[in-house]
């Protein structure tokens, strides 16, 4: 009996080993394959046939739209093939960084305002100003959007659309609780009262009024700008002090005590994406996001959603919001086909057929002509997002300078300190001091 078992066990072990070695073998094979493909990519550049590689982050909906535009481009530009690849936001940046480091960067890179400085300063992106205005027709772009894609006087990123920070509302939950929706005039004080009322009404199990926004960087930035401050100076230094930060944490501590916002352990479920936002988890009736994400939010929420601005700090305060390039297309400095890459980008932002396919899924198109093409043919969510971004009025101010290198780390630091205050490990005053210290330290290291 024991012997039989021993044999059976041995067999099992062998099977396990076999499986492992087979996996190793497959990994090895894959390595060979990838080696051979990079070889082919580097070696074969026939004059007549150019292959463009395109990498972006986003949802399946975005992929479908992008691939359709690539096909359009290919039919109109014989001899150029576009190979697209996409990933989620979190996986995108490691992939891009390793490809750039491995001298295997895609020709066209979807770039974010947060990272464009890091990549441009390290020489990974090709400057594009020499292609303007003939091959890259962005003369009808807002000057601020062109500035947003520029680093140290060179132009690296073509804005694919404008978006703005926004407050997402679960309209049904507001109606159910009998609370009127916030308007452009709503102040933080009023907004917190609405939140507390929704929580108290308790119409839905586990749902609170608003998300705990103390961890949300664009929200803090909006609040600072209304106070005449900012996150960072043009030189990349911290542009607020510990008093501002303490007051910010103090405000949220009050909201927490009043039951206006979700408790900290619920907020900590938010991984900074659409799927885990407290509105999507049905844990709050309002939360904070970006306007171009509205399409995505409505897609996974059964309730009717709406958009509004971030609250004002006082009835007469303004300029907290800004229209920012929601994302760019950049060209890799390693690309062997920069001309064709620029042609593709120009097609992407200018061609009317492409515009109809893309809609406002990447933000509101910058070109006035393109905007006109799509305006009459948008779906309901697209229209809400378009109206929101174009109707900000005095709430919108100037575009801040691109965040300095280290801004990603600083965002994590805000989250960390805000959580320490939220969970009661630090007082609001100490939290303010710690945050100012941490961010100064991070951006000075770069």
């Amino acid at each position, binding site marked *: 009996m*024991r012997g039989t*078992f*021993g044999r*059976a*066990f041995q067999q*099992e072990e062998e099977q396990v080993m076999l499986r492992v*070695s087979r996996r*190793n*073998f497959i*990994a*090895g*094979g894959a*390595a060979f394959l990838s080696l051979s493909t990079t070889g082919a990519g580097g070696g074969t550049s026939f004059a007549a046939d150019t292959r463009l590689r395109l990498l972006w982050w986003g949802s399946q909906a975005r992929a479908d739209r992008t691939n359709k535009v690539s096909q359009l481009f290919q039919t109109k530009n014989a001899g150029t093939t576009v190979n697209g690849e996409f990933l989620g936001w*979190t996986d995108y*940046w*490691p992939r891009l*960084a*390793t490809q*750039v*480091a491995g001298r295997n960067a895609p020709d066209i890179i979807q770039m974010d305002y947060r990272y464009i400085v*890091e*990549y441009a300063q*390290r*020489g*990974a992106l090709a400057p594009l100003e020499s292609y303007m205005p003939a091959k890259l027709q962005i003369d009808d772009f807002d000057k601020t959007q062109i500035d947003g894609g520029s680093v140290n006087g060179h132009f690296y990123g073509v804005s694919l659309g404008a978006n703005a920070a926004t407050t997402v509302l679960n309209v049904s939950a507001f109606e159910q609780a009998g609370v009127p929706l916030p308007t452009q005039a709503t102040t933080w004080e009023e907004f917190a009262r609405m939140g507390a009322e929704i929580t108290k009404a308790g119409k839905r199990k*586990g749902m609170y009024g608003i998300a705990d926004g103390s961890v949300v960087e664009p929200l803090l930035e909006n609040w600072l700008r209304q106070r005449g401050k900012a996150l960072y100076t043009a030189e990349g230094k911290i542009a607020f002090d510990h008093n501002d930060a303490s007051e910010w944490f103090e405000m949220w501590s009050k909201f927490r005590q009043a039951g206006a916002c979700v408790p*900290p*352990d*619920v*907020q*900590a*479920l938010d*991984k*900074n*994406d659409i799927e*885990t936002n407290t509105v999507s988890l049905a*844990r709050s009736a309002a939360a904070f996001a970006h306007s171009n994400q509205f399409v995505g939010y409505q897609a996974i929420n059964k309730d009717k959603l709406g958009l509004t601005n971030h609250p004002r700090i006082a009835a007469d305060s303004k300029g907290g919001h800004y229209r920012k390039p929601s994302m760019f297309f950049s060209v890799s400095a390693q690309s062997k086909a920069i001309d064709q890459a620029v042609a593709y980008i120009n097609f992407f932002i200018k061609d009317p057929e492409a515009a109809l396919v893309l809609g406002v899924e990447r933000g509101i198109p910058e070109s006035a002509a393109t905007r006109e093409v799509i305006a009459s043919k948008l779906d309901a969510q697209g229209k809400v997002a378009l109206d929101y971004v174009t109707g900000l009025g005095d709430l919108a101010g100037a575009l801040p300078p691109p965040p300095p*290198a*280290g801004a*990603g*780390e600083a965002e*994590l630091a805000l*989250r*960390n300190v805000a*959580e*320490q205050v939220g*969970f009661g*490990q630090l007082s609001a005053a100490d939290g303010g001091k710690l945050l100012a210290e941490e961010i100064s330290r991070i951006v000075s290291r770069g």
Partner: protein
Amino acid sequence: MNTATHASAADIAVERHQSVRARGRLARLWASNAPGYLFLLPWLLGFFGLTLGPALVSLYLSFTDFDLIRAPQWTGAANYVRIATADPKFAAAMQVTLTYVVLSVPFKLTFALLVAIALNRGVKGLTFYRAIFYLPSLLGGSVAIAVLWRQLFAGDGLVNAALSQFGIEGPSWISHPNYSIYTLVALSVWQFGSPMIIFLAGLRQIPTDMYEAASLDGASKFRQFYKITLPLLTPVIFFNAVVQTIDAFKAFTPAFIISGGTGGPINSTLFYTLYLYQEAFGNFRMGYASALAWILVVIIAIFTAFSFLTSRYWVHYDD
């Protein structure tokens, strides 16, 4: 002189003969081993190309400021000095990782041993149960299970739904800094399958006549376990402990998925490997991350060496 030449010529002839024979032996050796190496080739290529090579490069990079894009600049021991003197997050990550190792390894091994003993009592359908209990280990490292764990231990997850039956209103376990690490420990303990299988094999190797003799002498079941099972099982326990400790130090996926890559809330799930990953790919400090990686290698080596050194005092080899 003539004779001398003669002798040396003979020597040379002998030597040549020997060397030809040696070469022949080598050739024969090669001929008989070549297929072996050929079959090993994928693994050898993998080992040198994908493991040893990159490891040596990372050792070099740990002395540079490599940022993934620009060419690395030699900075001497600066990265190591910073880790030792000016990096609070290193200390935080180390603390989280050590807590995880110290909690998860003993619990997991104890649990695995208990299940193995239960299964060893001649349960009907042993293969079936063995497969069932092993299943979590196969799934364990996967992203899907980490996502499932998130669902179970979230505020409105299954665990709290069960607790609410008893009138307990639990917090969101995975996103509360006081509890999040324990949900990860629980996830690790749940994947007790592979040490259990090894324990089971070890238990099966203990001769039954020892137990028979002991029970004839009137030893209680507990005493039998304490005096026979445990000592004879020590080599297996030792093996499992070393392997599981190394695994625990290297844990990454659960914390990455459950915290969304942040290591939060408040760094409570900031595993060492997760911090390393953040530095490398989030903050573009590949040189610094390489230094962190090599420190982890040294720490694991120290732990393993310590286990081997102390093993002679408690591991009982039957020879």
